[in-house]
């Protein structure tokens, strides 16, 4: 398969002060793929996600997006390259309504496609339609996650970054959200890069996966391969089947 490369992370090192959080990470995401990154707490998964978004910036190495080096760009310019993010902790705007939150996501095109796209989001997550005039902060955790993903999608992204979409949610809701991601990927060819602790669900969904330990990628392969890998099973799946 002649996959076209969309995101390429090359030997990236990121520091928090003097502490090295990423120790030379190489990750690739091709167009139309769902790629997941799994690993234990503190492995550096979220740091990699944030580094791609330029906050903090990588000290060495390069991040190439769609043929352009974005390593040293400020966050908002990276976002304008159509890398949308549903960040860790969801970070919706709590005092604004669901509708306004979605509007904020469509700011890049100055609301040009807003009415069209908002209908799409409401079809994808009907719960958001019911709650549209409710304040973001009053939503349940699952609804907030839907809103966070919906807001990211409003930017018509080329690449969607999801940081732990299953965090703190009931399994049934996680299933619904993952199904929505799969649907977007299948129907619209959306490229998704997913960070998850819920390794089983993430790998089942993904075309390819990376395993991260202590700021380094230790394993990679197709989702099925990793699921079958005895080391991965021992470390992330056995006894932890969510």
């Amino acid at each position: 398969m002649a996959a076209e490369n969309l995101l390429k992370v090359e030997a990236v090192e990121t520091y928090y002060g003097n502490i090295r959080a990423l120790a030379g990470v190489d990750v690739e995401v091709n167009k139309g793929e769902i790629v997941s990154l799994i690993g234990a707490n503190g492995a550096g998964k979220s740091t990699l996600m944030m580094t791609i978004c330029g906050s903090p910036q990588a000290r060495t190495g390069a991040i190439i997006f769609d043929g352009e080096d974005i390593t040293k760009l400020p966050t908002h310019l990276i976002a304008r390259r159509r890398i949308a993010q549903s960040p860790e902790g969801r970070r919706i705007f709590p005092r604004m309504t669901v509708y306004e939150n979605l509007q904020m996501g469509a700011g890049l095109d100055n609301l040009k496609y807003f009415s069209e796209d908002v209908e799409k989001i409401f079809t994808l997550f009907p719960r958001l339609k019911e709650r549209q005039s409710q304040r973001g902060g009053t939503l349940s955790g699952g609804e907030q996650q839907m809103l966070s993903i919906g807001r990211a999608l409003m930017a018509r992204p080329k690449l969607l970054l999801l940081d732990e979409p299953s965090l703190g949610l009931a399994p049934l809701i996680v299933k619904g959200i993952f199904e929505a991601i799969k649907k977007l990927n299948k129907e619209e060819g959306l490229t998704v890069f997913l960070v998850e602790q819920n390794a089983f669900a993430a790998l089942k969904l993904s075309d390819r996966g990376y395993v991260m330990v202590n700021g380094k990628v230790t394993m990679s392969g197709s989702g099925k391969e990793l699921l079958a890998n005895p080391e991965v099973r021992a470390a992330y799946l056995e006894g932890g089947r969510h």
Partner: protein
Amino acid sequence: MTAATETGHPNVLAKAVREGIFAGVISFFMFLLFVGVETYQDINNALVWRTRWGLLAIFVLVAAVSRFLTVGFIKPHIDRRKLAKAKSGVLEISEQKNFFHRHFLKIALIFLLVYPFLSLLIVGKQGSLKYVDNFGIQILIYVMLAWGLNIVVGLAGLLDLGYVAFYAVGAYSYALLSSYFGLSFWLLLPMSGVLAALWGIILGFPVLRLRGDYLAIVTLAFGEIIRLVLINWTDVTKGTFGISGIAKASFFGIWSFDTGSANSFVKAWGLSASSVYYKIFLFYIILALCMLTAYVTIRLRRMPIGRAWEALREDEIACRSLGINTVTTKLTAFATGAMFGGIAGSFFATRQGFVSPESFVFLESAVILAIVVLGGMGSLTGIAIAAVVMVGGTEVLREMSFLKAVFGPDFTPELYRMLLFGLAMIIVMLFKPRGFVGSREPTAFLKERRAVSGSFTKEGHG
């Protein structure tokens, strides 16, 4: 209604007595040094002190009795009413609003438009000076300042404790440029807005990375720096003497309000000489400026930049990940807020005819911020109400000579201004923690418009 909730229930009364005594004891110690002891200079110019037990007793009594009444009668009454309401099944927030409620803004605007003539009609030329100037203009200046600060604090969530600096920049811009270069009010009004906006950006740059408490401290320092420069740069600003004889605003260059001039407004209209016409004219100018501020704020909230301000208040990181340039967003918030402060300042200068650094102390910033917080951050109506209460309240205090009957003949109510101010703020914050109008009107909606209820909204975290 059960017997247990009756007012006369012994438990409630006993509790009320207990709490009343407790409040009395606390207020005794609280006011012992503030009220009970007074220092004064005797005939030899030495500072001596005397006690004021009578006044202290009145203070303690007021505290004890009001606590007794609150616990014993007012609170049970409110509780009973709430209970009855809950039982009858009527929702606390009813959709039906009465006529006054629905048309509040229109009524308020019409009242403001006829206000000067109304006061002229009722109390005559000389009497209406007080109502138009001390009440009308004074309150409207604060409304405009608070609405300007609201952009920075209420919308963008940047806690600014030095807002008065921009007010000072506007006032001195007008005072200096008009007395050195003889430029007219109508030219300098927008110009001082621009200059203040420039200073807003100058303040904005170093504080871009700061939030909350840290930002508050830096802005506080900024306000003091401006004031100290005004005091010490005596060559230009004349220091603490201030600048006097600042030119009056003209009637758009057609008529002048100076009594001696050839094209005097009074002469042109064949009126008897009185300063009230000028005051009424100023009243309408500041009213128009307030309306301009409100209009711009409302419009901006619906534009991308206004939405970005509000999003910035909510979550800066999320803003950046949505492609919003937080640097320009913050700077425009500072600049826009400062601009309105500057315009209000230049109006203040022309109205006073005199500016000195004393008008721009930290207390002014605190009062403006208090108005914004009391009114409910982000709500224009709430802020206007708060300005009327806070500024109008202190003016009313001057009129309350009947208090002398209670507290003795040398009681000057104005001196207790800050005490009452603080008391009022505590009461409002206890009962309406999100300000008078705590709800936030969404700027976008699909079919129905519903205010976001105040009880859900979070305080700005500055």
